[in-house]
């Protein structure tokens, strides 16, 4: 087959629908990645405009620009948009767009999930914007501390928009995180062992794992606060056994890792772009990987350094202060690796390099002020002042925006296939750099002079007037720089001339394809033998286009790629992707209906939305799989591989495993909250402990045991070639016994509005009930699949997935039983 014919055939298979309709049905990572990035930058602009409004307000004392109520909404939405609707989605968009190209494959692991994540992000973000337009935007600050945001002090709908909207948006982050973990570990070019992975993939993997374990505490906190606001469950009310400090713990368990979730992808961009700009390779690749991993873990033990002024024990202050200073070490390792790369190479001062230098200066200053606030006595002085605001902007703007701008200018030719013509970018960089430092150096200063953060005005005699004016002027200079970047990019996209295929002379695989990239990425998949495959083999693009790699022969109109071994990158199985569909947008709309019903308190619509989500999920999964066995197929290079559907560890198994890691973190956070309230909160012990029932314990334990035995029996029977309907039916009945036990326990819990203890028990049993219902649905699905002939010994993936969920139910169900029943038995 000639290269052109292959291109046409692959394009027909992989393309999105033409025109506007294609936006709603595309599941292609290139399309969805671009949608993510464009949407994130729209949110960035909105957040930036809000920042300018803040600076306009603070430019002069006694400002009458905005009243306190509107000003509260402005700064809350500025922080919320920048953190949740710009930074994280920009990482998601960049990773979704780039990773399959960098990894030498055709798409991410779950293309429909990619699309679903995007629509959840767009709908959830839009919900927040609508609140702003209506003048009822969240107004409690981006970290939403109760009791200020509780039902007593914030009775309006503003806070609900934040809690529900952000939880909706976080579905997108969780979806992307699961997708990225599986894609990086299992969907790489054959031969790409862990040591040959592009450095950006390592950073993306670490970041995705952090999202999986960092976001669940915030999701839990948001659910608990919303339950308090909507139904009066007093998790954060001290007089009823709650504690507002629980929110701070849950929020910062997310919030501090969030800083590194934002920084690490940007560091990945630096580690990718810098060596190319220096005409060399990254110095200390292995040390950089180790530093990124160490940084990720350290970042999870720093959350209390946001709470140094809350009166926690001295030793705890010292523990977190020590851990906070330690984080400078792996950060320093990376900085020195980059400096070493500069040293050993021949740096060329292209536009991406300017932004990298901007990053160096800014981020190092932010890091140093970070060490300052890690020292407890200093933190006590500057806590909640503009100094902290300035520090976080140095870290986030320096550590994220400059690298992302470097990345935009570096990969723009790859996205558009054009070369830069105008030189607006250099002017923009100068304005952004000067404007940024003017704004935030001044803000450090005014913070040290005592200006509190989030104040809407101040007096002339405070002595902050000139510094604030300088800061505001700087912010407007920076805004002009950002506007010029956007102008530059738009002009480039619309008017620039076609450019060469690999303008920077890079060695990574995203440049080994036609640019702008075709929907299928690679006409055939490369075999990777080094970290810079394109640098080692400049003819690689040509050979891939000729079909000399893997999967060079399109067949049966199927979207095919390969799954590989995690460590060695040896090809393991053939994967067939689903095609374009509107299912993800429909599913996101139905998910949105669920959140909207909660927000507007249309509780009658909640079961309808949940049933809709369940029905669509059923359809989603039903479309996968085949009703006949597939023979192993040749994939090129003389290799024949089985279908991924026959593997015990199928793509779905991997995705489920990572999702359960996140779910387990959520459950662990709930148990932590329970233990925290029991140990620390005032108003304990509760009026009476939940009365233990030996009957519930016996039935619950027996039902859980039967459930897991049934699913294991079903797995074995299917593997032996039988139809395991009896085992599945027994499992289904056992699951409904678990549901019944949970329901009875929930009914016996004393009024949950009277004490946080009862409220927590209600949430724990509700969690177990939800998972029992979910597992029941999965058993019902498996029964339907067996009856419809979708299973066989070589089509067994669904059994192992349901087995995972069942084991999770057994574990969490047993813990819930213990948490509810044992305290009464042992007192």
């Amino acid at each position, binding site marked *: 087959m000639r290269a052109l014919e292959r291109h046409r055939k692959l394009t027909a298979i992989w393309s999105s629908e033409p025109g506007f309709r294609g936006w709603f049905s595309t599941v292609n990572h290139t399309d969805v990645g671009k949608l993510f990035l464009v949407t994130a930058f729209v949110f960035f602009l909105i957040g930036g405009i809000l920042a300018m409004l803040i600076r306009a307000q603070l430019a002069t004392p006694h400002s009458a620009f905005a009243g306190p109520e509107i000003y509260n909404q402005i700064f809350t939405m500025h922080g919320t948009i920048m953190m949740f609707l710009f930074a994280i989605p920009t990482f998601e968009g960049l990773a979704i767009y780039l990773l399959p190209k960098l990894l030498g494959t055709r798409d991410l692991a779950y293309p429909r999930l990619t699309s679903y994540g995007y629509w959840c992000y767009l709908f959830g973000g839009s919900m927040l914007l609508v609140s702003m337009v209506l003048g009822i935007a969240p107004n409690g600050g981006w970290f939403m501390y109760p009791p200020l945001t509780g039902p007593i002090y914030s009775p309006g709908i503003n806070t609900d928009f934040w809690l529900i909207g952000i939880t909706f948006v976080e579905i997108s982050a969780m979806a992307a995180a699961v997708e990225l973990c599986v894609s990086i*570990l299992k969907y790489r070019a054959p031969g790409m062992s862990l040591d040959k992975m592009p450095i950006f993939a390592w950073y993306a993997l670490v970041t995705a794992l952090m999202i999986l374990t960092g976001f669940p505490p915030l999701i839990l906190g948001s659910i608990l606060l919303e339950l308090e606001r909507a139904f009066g469950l007093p998790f954060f009310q001290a007089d009823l056994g709650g504690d507002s400090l629980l929110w701070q713990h849950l929020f910062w368990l997310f919030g501090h890792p969030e800083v590194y979730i934002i920084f690490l992808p940007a560091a990945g961009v630096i580690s990718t772009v810098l060596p190319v700009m220096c005409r060399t390779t990254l110095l200390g690749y292995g040390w950089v990987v180790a530093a990124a991993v160490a940084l990720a873990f350290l970042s999870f033990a720093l959350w209390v350094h946001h709470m140094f002024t809350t009166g926690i024990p001295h030793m705890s202050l010292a523990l977190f202060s020590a851990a906070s200073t330690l984080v400078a070490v792996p950060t320093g390792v990376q900085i020195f690796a980059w400096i070493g790369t500069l040293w050993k190479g021949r740096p060329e001062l292209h536009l991406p390099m300017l932004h990298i230098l901007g990053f160096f200066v800014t981020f190092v200053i932010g890091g140093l002020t970070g060490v300052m606030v890690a020292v407890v006595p200093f933190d006590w002085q500057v806590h909640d002042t503009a100094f902290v605001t300035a520090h976080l902007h140095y870290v986030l703007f320096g550590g994220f925006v400059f690298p992302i701008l470097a990345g935009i200018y570096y990969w723009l030719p790859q996205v558009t296939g054009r070369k830069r013509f105008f030189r607006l970018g250099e002017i923009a960089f100068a304005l952004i750099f000067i404007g940024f430092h003017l704004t935030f150096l001044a803000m450090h200063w005014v913070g040290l002079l005592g200006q509190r953060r989030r104040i809407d005005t101040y007096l002339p005699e405070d002595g902050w007037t000139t510094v604030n004016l300088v800061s505001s002027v700087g912010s407007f200079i920076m805004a002009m720089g950002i506007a010029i970047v956007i102008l530059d990019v738009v002009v480039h996209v619309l008017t620039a001339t076609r450019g060469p295929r690999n303008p920077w002379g890079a060695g990574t695989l995203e440049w080994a394809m036609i640019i702008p990239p075709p929907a299928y990425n690679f006409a055939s998949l490369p075999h990777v033998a080094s970290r810079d495959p394109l640098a080692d083999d400049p003819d690689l693009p040509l050979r891939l286009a000729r079909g000399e790699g893997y999967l060079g022969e399109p067949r049966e109109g199927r979207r095919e790629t390969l799954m590989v071994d995690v460590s060695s990158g040896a090809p393991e199985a053939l994967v067939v992707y689903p095609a374009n569909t509107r299912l993800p947008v429909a599913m996101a709309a139905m998910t949105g209906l669920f959140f909207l019903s909660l927000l507007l308190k249309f509780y009658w619509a909640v079961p309808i939305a949940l049933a809709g989500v369940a029905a669509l999920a059923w359809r989603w999964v039903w479309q996968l799989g085949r009703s006949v066995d597939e023979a192993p197929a040749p994939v090129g290079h003389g290799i024949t591989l089985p279908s991924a559907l026959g593997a015990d560890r199928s793509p779905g198994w991997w995705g489920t495993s990572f999702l359960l890691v996140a779910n387990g973190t959520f459950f662990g956070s709930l148990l932590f909250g329970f233990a925290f309230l029991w140990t620390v909160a005032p108003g304990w012990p509760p009026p009476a402990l939940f009365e233990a029932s030996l009957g519930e314990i016996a039935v619950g334990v027996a039902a859980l045991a039967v459930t897991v035995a049934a699913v294991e029996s079903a797995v074995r029977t299917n593997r032996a070639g039988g139809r395991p309907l009896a085992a599945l039916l027994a499992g289904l009945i056992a699951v409904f016994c678990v549901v019944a036990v949970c329901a009875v326990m929930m009914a016996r819990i004393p009024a949950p509005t009277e004490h946080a203890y009862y409220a927590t028990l209600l949430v724990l049993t509700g969690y177990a009930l939800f998972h029992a219902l979910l597992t029941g649905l999965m058993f019902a699905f498996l029964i339907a699949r067996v009856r419809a002939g979708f299973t066989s010994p070589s089509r067994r993936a669904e059994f192992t997935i349901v087995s995972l969920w069942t084991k999770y139910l057994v574990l969490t169900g047993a813990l819930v039983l213990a948490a509810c029943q044992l305290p009464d038995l042992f007192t």
Partner: protein
Amino acid sequence: MTDVMRIVLSPLVWLASFSAVYGLNGLLCGHGLVDAAVGSLSVQRAILVGAYGLALALQAAILVGLHMPRFASSSGFVRGVSVATGMAGFVAAAWSLMPVLTTSLC
């Protein structure tokens, strides 16, 4: 996946130890034992120092394990990175939990 686990094991154990010592301190401060003593050492301090020692021992065991042919990865790269993260875990445990020796308790 075993190789990935080798890389993250030591920092993961450090995170668990750090959280456990923090929780233990909160528990001991919240539920008495502040005044109880064993000789010149308070019971609370003795428990926390014991936990510190255990955390260091665990980290040392992992580090030794990562060097042993039976547990080490066959990939030189993974071996190198896992030993580096192992050292990071050990240093993190030694430094971040040191306040149990030096700081006032509650």
